[in-house]
């Protein structure tokens, strides 16, 4: 093995460790983070995204909403609303962002999702959020107004 090749093998893991958690769904979740989904009570499902210490809370928040839209798309629903907690859902107090928590510098964001067949107050349009996801992922960054554009 050449010295150049050995150097590459030695540096590759270091480079990987320095990357922010890439956007992925629960099927691509790993020890470094990724999406998750848990069945909830009633008409609620909890979806979210956990990241490593190289990803910021705002991006994780946005990824959680992308996950919510993907869940709505997979369920064939054109709209959905999100709640920051089950108590908010009990009050039907809708949100436009996820709950973000930090442990050891690693952010985790989640929302409670309720799927809708029709548009409603503060509902998000599934197609619009997915379009935004594609734009954000293509640009390789998140934008401050991403949520505003898809929240009614």
């Amino acid at each position, binding site marked *: 093995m050449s010295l150049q090749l050995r150097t590459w093998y030695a540096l590759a893991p270091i480079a990987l460790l320095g990357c922010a958690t890439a956007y992925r769904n*629960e099927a691509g*979740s*790993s*020890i470094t*983070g*990724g999406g*998750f*989904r*848990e*069945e*909830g*009570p*009633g*008409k*609620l499902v*909890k979806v*979210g995204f*956990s990241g490593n*210490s190289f990803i910021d809370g705002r991006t994780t928040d946005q990824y959680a909403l992308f996950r919510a839209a993907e869940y709505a798309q997979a369920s064939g629903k054109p709209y959905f609303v999100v*709640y920051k*907690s*089950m*108590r*908010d*859902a*009990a*009050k*039907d107090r809708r949100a436009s962002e996820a*709950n*973000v*928590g*930090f*442990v*050891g*510098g*690693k952010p*985790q964001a*989640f929302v409670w999702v*309720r799927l809708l067949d029709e548009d409603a107050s503060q509902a998000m349009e599934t197609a619009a959020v997915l379009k935004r996801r594609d734009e954000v992922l293509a640009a390789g960054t998140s934008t401050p107004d991403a949520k505003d554009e898809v929240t009614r």
Partner: protein
Amino acid sequence: MNGRTRASYVVALGLAASACAVQRPYVFAPGEVSATVRVIDGGDISVCKDGTMYSVTPPPKSQLVSIPASERIAVGRLLVYQAGNMSYSCYPMLSFTPRPSGAYALDAVVVGGRCVVELVREDPLSATGVSLELSVGPRDCFARSDAPAAPAAPSAWEQ
């Protein structure tokens, strides 16, 4: 159990071992009324009744656990996060008075930098399928069952 749960909500062995020494499984007395709790990410919860802590474990591949009803109890979860060489743990709890045959959902998470636990009542008549459980109050693990119920207090979500 999903990847995130496996990766970050794994119960720390040391704490689990110490907890096991204190908590024994709750065993229903003959004819004792019960309620059901859906534990959102699965796993064990702790139940404190009459000043004694018990563990309650769902059946395999189930989120549902049975708990004693008709008197105020405390419920909670041990959360443990691994971050590199560091381990972070917390034990959020609350109390409430389960109704016989009532159905509830419990979730324990980190929001901001705080551990919080919330509990709602499953309500098929509600638009979202859940309603507020008005008996929720602060943890009172060591209150006697015949003592007056603790006054309802805002949960961590409302603070």
